[in-house]
């Protein structure tokens, strides 16, 4: 899932200066799973924002609406009834959803309520860890199901580096597993350590953000 974190409240209070009718818009998909922008978080942020602004002597009317997805036009359309009643939208969706709302309603100020941070998995309750960097050149088949791009602090294609601790942790964080240690252990368990001797050439980064904004076309699906 895409994960995100709330922006600091003072930042939101600052950007809402001059606004009197605000919509806090949530998304019930990824950001709900990471407890940043689902209905619960929307209904938490709304009274909190109201109080923070009131404390500064500013009264605003905060409405809330959580869409099934903010990254699908059909769902974004559900905001059409409420947007004319507000002068600003705080979106708790990921960057994709925020931009979709801003594109559909260009006359209204749309502010991000979160910082979108990674593609991650919920490792355990309350803990999300990055698993994918959307690099556009997946090597998971060669690395025994561990992504060195997202999970190695140095994104090494040929690891490990010299910073692996004796207990298999990364030198930058004692709580972080060295992904190349994990790759080696899984390769060993499968009896295929020799596969790791192959030197992986530089990745084709042009198929991700390094090649300009990604554009994927499927002619068979186009109107």
């Amino acid at each position, binding site marked *: 899932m895409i994960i995100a974190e709330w922006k*600091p*409240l*003072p930042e939101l209070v600052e950007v809402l200066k001059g606004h009197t009718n605000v919509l806090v818009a949530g998304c019930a998909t990824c950001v709900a799973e990471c407890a940043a922008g689902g209905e*619960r978080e929307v*209904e*938490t942020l709304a*009274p*909190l*924002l*109201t*109080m*923070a602004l*009131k*404390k*500064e002597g500013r*009264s605003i009317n905060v409405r809330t609406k959580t869409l099934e997805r903010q990254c699908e036009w059909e769902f974004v359309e559900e905001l059409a009834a409420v947007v004319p009643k507000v002068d600003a939208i705080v979106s708790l969706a990921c960057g994709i959803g925020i931009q979709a709302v801003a594109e559909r309603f260009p006359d209204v100020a749309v502010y991000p309520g979160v910082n979108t941070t990674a593609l991650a998995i919920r490792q355990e309750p309350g803990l999300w860890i990055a698993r994918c960097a959307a690099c556009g050149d997946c090597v998971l088949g060669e690395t025994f199901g561990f992504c060195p791009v997202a999970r190695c602090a140095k994104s090494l294609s040929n690891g490990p580096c010299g910073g692996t601790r004796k207990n298999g942790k990364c030198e930058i964080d004692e709580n972080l597993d060295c992904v190349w240690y994990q790759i080696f252990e899984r390769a060993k368990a499968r009896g295929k350590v020799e596969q790791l001797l192959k030197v992986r050439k530089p990745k084709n980064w042009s198929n991700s953000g390094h090649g300009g904004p990604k554009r994927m076309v499927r002619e068979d699906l186009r109107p």
Partner: protein
Amino acid sequence: MKDSSSSGSTPRIVVVYCRNAVASAAEMLEGPHTQKGLNAYFAALPCSSKVEPSYLLKILADGADGLLVVACPEGKCRFMVGNVRAEKRINYVRSLLDTANMGADRLTLERGEKLKEKDLLKLAQDRLGPLKILGPNPMKGDRK
């Protein structure tokens, strides 16, 4: 007994409590209570873990000066860890209240078991002093 709820200086406090923390159903308080200098509203929960950050914040955004959650003692939750979860959520909401400059102490947690009606009233009364120091909730009178 004189009803002091009309006094504007009496902090309005909402008390939500775990029904398993009271001695019996006869000791449960529900709704508004304005005796003994209190301006309180009591509501029972099936477990203190039923408190959600959004609900807690809405109660304060609706103008309550203080919010008290009463949970069972640690290790005595009927649902094993409900009161532990409640404490974590309350601490989270307290941190949010601080970022909003509302004062974390508007929301507090107390623990107790076999509580009687007078104990619940006492817990609410004990909050009056700290809430008077915090001053009235700026949201007071803002909501209809």
